[in-house]
């Protein structure tokens, strides 16, 4: 990765769910942490999200879903990202994700799953470590599915 430019993050809300409190808080916290953040707004289709990720040339895609539709929407987004040559982008999912779905999301390439109660600082640390920007701080980031 080109370390001379800011890390670019797309925060997206797929599906019909309009609960955007978490997406906005995370977007702002990542911006305050020095990332370049693009927020799609609500009710985005998987196609629109993959296309935005490509056009904005992002390093990270954060998907916020609280409606329970993640098992229908996330696999589709992962496939569309791969089709656009963006298979190596770091994908995170946040929202209400039952424990049993976490391994399924990991299996299709989602690297981090953050549930309710996650501290924004943990998400920042996670992204930095996954992108190899610095050592993983205290190494005590949110475990998937339960926050920290």
């Amino acid at each position, binding site marked *: 990765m080109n370390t001379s430019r800011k890390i670019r993050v797309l925060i997206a809300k797929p599906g019909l769910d309009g609960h*955007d409190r978490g997406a906005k808080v995370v977007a702002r*916290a990542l911006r305050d942490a020095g990332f370049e953040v693009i927020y799609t707004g609500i009710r985005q289709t998987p196609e629109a999200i993959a296309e935005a990720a490509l056009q904005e040339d992002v390093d990270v895609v954060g998907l916020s879903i609280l409606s329970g539709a*993640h098992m229908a929407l996330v696999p589709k987004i992962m496939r569309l990202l791969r089709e656009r040559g963006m298979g190596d982008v770091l994908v995170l999912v946040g929202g209400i994700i039952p424990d049993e779905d976490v391994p399924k999301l990991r299996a299709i390439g989602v690297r981090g799953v953050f549930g*309710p109660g996650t*501290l924004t600082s943990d998400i920042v640390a996670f992204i930095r470590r996954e992108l190899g920007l610095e050592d993983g701080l205290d190494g005590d980031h949110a475990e998937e599915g339960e*926050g920290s």
Partner: protein
Amino acid sequence: MYDREKAQEVRKEKQRWQETTVRKALERFPERYESFMTISGLPVERVYTPDNVVEMDYMRDLGLPGEFPFTRGPYPTMYRGRLWTMRMFAGFGTAEETNRRFKYLLSEGETGLSIAFDMPTLYGYDTDAPEAEGEFGKCGVAVSSLRDMEILLDGIPLDRVTTSMTINSPAAVIWAMYIVTAEKRGIPRRKLGGTIQNDILKEYIAQKEYIFPPDPSMRLVVDTIEFATQEMPLWHPISISGYHIREAGSTAVQELAFTLADGFTYVEAALDRGLDVDAFAPRLSFFFNVHNDFFEEIAKFRAARRIWARAMRDKYGAKKPRSWLLRFHAQTAGCTLTAQQPENNIVRVAIQALAAVLGGAQSLHTNSMDEALALPSEKAVRIALRTQQIIAHETEVTNTIDPLGGSFYVEELTNRLEEAAEEYFRRIEALGGMIAAIERGYPQQEIAEAAFRYQMEVDAKRRIIVGVNEYVQDEPIEIPLLEMDPQGYERQVARLNEVRRTRDNREVLRTLRAVREAARNGKNLMYPILDAVAAYATLGEIMGVLREEFGEWEEPVWF
């Protein structure tokens, strides 16, 4: 409320106490924080005394229960006469599954129904619409046509229970389905009691389940208010909601201010239609959140009643005392539930529910402990309902009205909340009213700002959330989660296709044309929508016509 001279004496004594007794104590034991504040950020003093409330006039500011300005309660006997309605919000999967849950809740002592609809229904899509992919039955029950509503309400005594329906953009259509279902069973519409949420302004502000732009949305709301005024004397055609505003991250002050400002906007729209304020005002109802800051929440409910009563009487000229009353449903704050150590949520919900009762709620939903993880299981719902029953029957808090009235702190907080709300009213007014403010993203940005501030306080441990940023435990979570019918989706789509095949499609086309006609000529849409629903036109078809006529709203994106 106190003799000025005596209050002055107290003030002097308090100053002496700060300089001597308190100072000495602080030298040995500093306080935990430099300053204290409510969850909303209002400053909190060390102790409250009569001098804090000396400007109050008892009869002007508090009065007696059931009398203006209703600060102490909307009814003269409150829970001594009748307990609040225990109304548990429920809905998931197919109409059959939710119908079973309703019957279970009624058999366990629930006294009113509250229907949760799934995302496609909330957005006016049929279950099989492409936009609905993956969303069927997840956050509520799917209702795509009258047939689903008939199954959903099967065996429920609609002439005896009241039903609250959490539905906004498509409220007119879903309400029409409820009415037609009852009428087909021989229950006339004037006998039906219940509420449709139908509060579109808070959708733009907070929950974001809007479809149409503000103007046609407001027209639909006024159509339903007008229809209720003429035909449904027992129904509340709108539940003006702060709940979602709070869940989106607002403070208590913002919840109070934006909700009441929305209320004023509906009143003004109905007056513009030419409706008589005393004909519709008694049918307006409210819905508030009940969050963790115990005293602030109680003060919020008291302030809401006082502000509303004064505005309805003095600004909008309502003559009937019933028009001045703010009556509200409360729900414990979903956003305070933690996924970590979920059993702790039972305790949070109990404390919040107690605040709702001490604040004088007319009906109450208590959240289930597992809702930060998934849809609530039957056991979790039962515990939540039992929490209300324990408060109602074991704590004796229901014996007297507004027991915290006269508390120096609660009265001071009530006053501060009222003042802060009025400051917001002035700012909204200066922006050209609530709709103009929404179009500029003003309440949305205020809320996002508060949500971010709150999260930063949690991140920095200025606020401790038990089990989240302190007292953390690494244990697997052991609570039973709800299993849904895996064939539900197929069953629902098959039923929908059967409805489309067996109905009189010419009648459907005719009634949909009438809906389009009314959308264009401004006649009340409820009547053609009732006809279309009765002909088994689907939700998606009726909303599709309105989408074509009214267009769709897109909010500006920012964070």
